[in-house]
């Protein structure tokens, strides 16, 4: 039994912090998807700058949030224990790898790009996991969801790029489908573990994501992408495009909810009450 004031939603990290996970996740996911499945060509050439731009946009969001923006380079000072520092280093490595893969595409540079993108997404997941003050963030199952949603968003962007350059690429569709299923499973496990720890509006906000991410984000996207893969190009593009956009939107919605609306702290709790007076 515990006693104490009710927890409240943290106000330190707002949409700007959420933006880092949304844009950074999608950007690193796109770079990972490009390394995994996109063949060299126009879509590949666009995917790299687009992925980097999204990662940069996410980092810009963080920069807008910090209290001392002119000291931003201090973020590199603690690689020993801080996942934020590790994310910053991974971001630098990601940019270097992307430039190398862009100008010298080959097995080594593309593999390095994929690894750097994976490490960047991994660091993002662990930034939340290391936040001991927020039960919805420190839940270990969140790591799998953040990784799965980054890959989903990246694969969805890769589908859009492939279609924009008139390619029906089964491998890209397959990656998106696999990522959507993985994301749905990761979300289910995460929400099952986390929702019981929350109360009130934050719990309702988290639970409200479930039908959106499962019915629209997973089944809806899968159905549209499956239909697109079976149809000729003129019909495939809008269907797959809508499916991919739904996949991205639901992932961003989930991450925004986790960071800004489900981020209850745990308040203060007394395991026992003081004993007063004579006994």
């Amino acid at each position, binding site marked *: 039994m515990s*006693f104490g004031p009710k927890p409240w939603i943290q106000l330190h990290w707002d949409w700007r912090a959420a933006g880092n996970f949304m844009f950074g996740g999608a950007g690193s996911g796109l770079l990972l998807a490009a390394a995994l499945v996109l063949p060299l060509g126009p879509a590949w050439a666009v995917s790299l700058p687009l992925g980097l731009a999204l990662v940069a946009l996410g980092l810009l969001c963080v920069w807008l949030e910090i*209290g001392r923006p002119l000291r931003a380079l201090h973020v590199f000072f603690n690689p020993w224990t801080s996942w*934020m520092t590790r994310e910053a280093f991974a971001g630098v490595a990601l940019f270097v790898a992307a430039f190398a893969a862009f100008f010298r595409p080959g097995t080594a540079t593309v593999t390095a790009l994929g690894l750097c993108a994976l490490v960047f997404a991994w660091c993002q997941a662990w930034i939340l996991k290391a*936040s001991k003050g927020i039960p919805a963030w420190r839940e270990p199952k969140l790591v799998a969801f953040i990784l799965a949603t980054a890959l989903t968003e990246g694969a969805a962007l890769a589908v859009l790029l492939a279609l924009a350059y008139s390619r029906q690429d089964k491998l890209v569709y397959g990656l998106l489908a696999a990522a959507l299923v993985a994301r749905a499973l990761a979300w289910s496990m995460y929400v099952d573990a986390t929702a019981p720890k929350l109360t009130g509006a934050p719990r309702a906000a988290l639970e409200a994501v479930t039908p959106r991410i499962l019915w629209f984000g997973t089944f809806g996207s899968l159905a549209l992408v499956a239909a697109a893969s079976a149809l000729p190009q003129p019909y495939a593009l809008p269907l797959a495009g809508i499916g991919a956009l739904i996949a991205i939107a639901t992932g961003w919605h989930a991450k925004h909810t986790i960071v800004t609306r489900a981020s209850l702290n745990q308040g203060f709790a*007394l395991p026992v009450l003081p004993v007063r007076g004579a006994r």
Partner: protein
Amino acid sequence: MTRWVMIADLRRCVGCQTCTAACKHTNATPPEVQWRRVLDMEVGEYPDVKRVFVPVGCMHCADPPCMHVCPSTATRQRADGIVTIDYDLCIGCAYCAVACPYQARYKTDKAEFAYGEPMESEAKQFDPGRLGVATKCTFCSDRIDAGLAKGLKPGVDPDASPACVNSCIAQALHFGDIEDPQSNVSQLLAENQFFRMHEELGTEPGFYYLWDRKPS
């Protein structure tokens, strides 16, 4: 070795908030920033209701999550266990604030004063270096260090003790070295039952709450 800890005797605290006022006066914290807070908890339902006053603040954990997540190494831990913030290094990312399970950290982005314009005392103590960075209770480490330099004993001599402890009208707050078995805090912990807040998180807080005497 020395490890400074604080004890709050929940049986004694009357919720007068004098510690809060003393802390604000000593550390010149802006409005809505309370490094030493006293929670007023109402527990139960009528007619079986109890009221408990719980001093809270930075717990100066032995394994502080705020220090681990800090990307700039602004948050550090001294050899005596006190968790510190270097305001010149802090980038104000507030990662420490969301990592702290005790809501002990604050970030003030612009100068604020109790009545808009700063009073003379506020203007005198205003530190622009504290804007846009994380701040929290320091266990009045400057007082401790100055007291030790004079040969005084923290927790015993007021000039070497945190302001909140000195001000407590009910002697509910105590401060001392838990590594010294003869210290006031070690004696209190030996004689009473105690707990630490959110101990299940493994942060090993340096803030103990007494709730009953030990059964004889």
